[in-house]
């Protein structure tokens, strides 16, 4: 096995690199630390492209022309990589060469909003039952519901309201629902980084 000057005895030694393709490259290939980091980075990749495969149409089949610069940008912005991970993936290409193609077809936005709503329903452990996500690029809203029955999974709804909600002040906004009814509009919250 290749010797390594960087600390790599424990997983903790690798924490900063586990979400950074750039730092991964500072570890020699064929070292266990590199493989460990690669395993972690692949999960970020698959979490993005397995759920939103449409994005591969923009990036090419390996996804790297989106994944690498997005992860570097996310590192600079110190994004939390919480349920809003996908929404930030949409925010980033709006400032990139992909912008025109991204905005030309609403399927990308729908996929991304649905993915983030689902991720909230999977990961959030607060008392709220649902999340509503809106975007300045559409009047549609997407709702993610947590599991409400032992017979069901999480549910995602796309709604095209007859009377659109006000646009969020930023690119995306969200609010959460304390019950399994969409019967309130408390105003949009901005995404936390």
């Amino acid at each position: 096995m290749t010797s390594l000057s960087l600390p790599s005895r424990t997983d903790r030694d690798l924490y900063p690199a586990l979400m950074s393709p750039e730092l991964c490259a500072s570890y020699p290939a064929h070292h266990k630390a590199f493989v460990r980091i690669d395993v972690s980075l692949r999960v970020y990749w698959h979490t993005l492209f397995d759920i939103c495969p449409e994005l591969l149409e923009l990036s090419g089949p390996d996804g790297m022309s989106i994944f690498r610069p997005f992860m570097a940008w996310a590192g600079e912005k110190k994004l939390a990589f919480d349920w809003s991970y996908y929404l930030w993936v949409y925010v980033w290409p709006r400032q990139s060469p992909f912008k025109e193609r991204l905005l030309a077809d609403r399927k990308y936005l729908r996929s991304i909003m649905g993915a983030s709503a689902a991720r909230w329903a999977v990961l959030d452990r607060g008392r709220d039952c649902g999340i509503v996500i809106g975007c300045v690029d559409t009047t549609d809203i997407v709702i993610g519901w947590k599991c409400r029955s032992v017979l069901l999974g999480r549910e995602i709804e796309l709604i095209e309201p007859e009377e659109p909600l006000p646009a969020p002040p930023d690119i995306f906004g969200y609010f959460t629902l304390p019950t399994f009814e969409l019967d309130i509009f408390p105003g949009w919250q901005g995404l936390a980084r």
Partner: protein
Amino acid sequence: MRLGFNFTLGDTHEMVQRLIAERHIDYCEFLIDNFFCVEPDELAKAFDCPVGLHIMYSKFLEADRPTLVDFAARLRDYIDALNPIYVSDHILRFSHEGRAFFHLGEVDYSTEYELVRDKVLQWQDLVGQRIHFENYPSIMDGGVEAPAFFERLTEETGAGVLFDASNAVCSNRNCGTPFEAWRNVIAGAKHFHVAGYRQSLIEPFISLDTHAEALAPDTLAFLEKFRSVFDKPGATMTYERDDQIEFDDIVADLKLLRNLFGQPEERRHDLALSA
């Protein structure tokens, strides 16, 4: 040894019912915090068998106290309604400097013991009962310190270990943690997990806890060699499958475990062979 299956979401409800009806399993393990919006009474009626409660996202090492107080209060409702065989959780890192891992991180056993011990004591106090903490499928070499860490943790906190046998196999393959080093932990544990693992895609190959494959030969060999240390009155072993969920494949693995440990009511623990 009672055998169980992990129930994480409603789409496997019918299959778990069938596993129970055909007596392939004796209990069911809920990934309980996935069901925090389901009424406890509905959950209590979901399956006609005993249950275990496994926690995934308490994040008790990282979450602030008000968050944990609220989580514990909701968990308590399910404990009271379901009267579980055990409650278990993970010793894991979910984030670094506020940024979430998507492949969760292992703690540093040599430098973080006191922090983990204190958090475990606080978490058990909030939940109001003993919690069994799962070992990690170690990759890096610091994983060899896990057995001593868990031994000390159980001694000093009264916590249990939810000993994941296939995680120990991964740790053995990845960083050489000897199976023998786990003997005291296994002997003191009553609740176990087992699942399949797979290799990484690139070399040097490491073994990854995936819950998507059949039980590996070395996992079965480990169980067989330490059978009498695992098996004891009240012991449970949950077979975990989270992907590639095929009934016949799962039953095939459960039969291997049943053949190894026997029907729970048929085992005579006082005659069990020592490993």
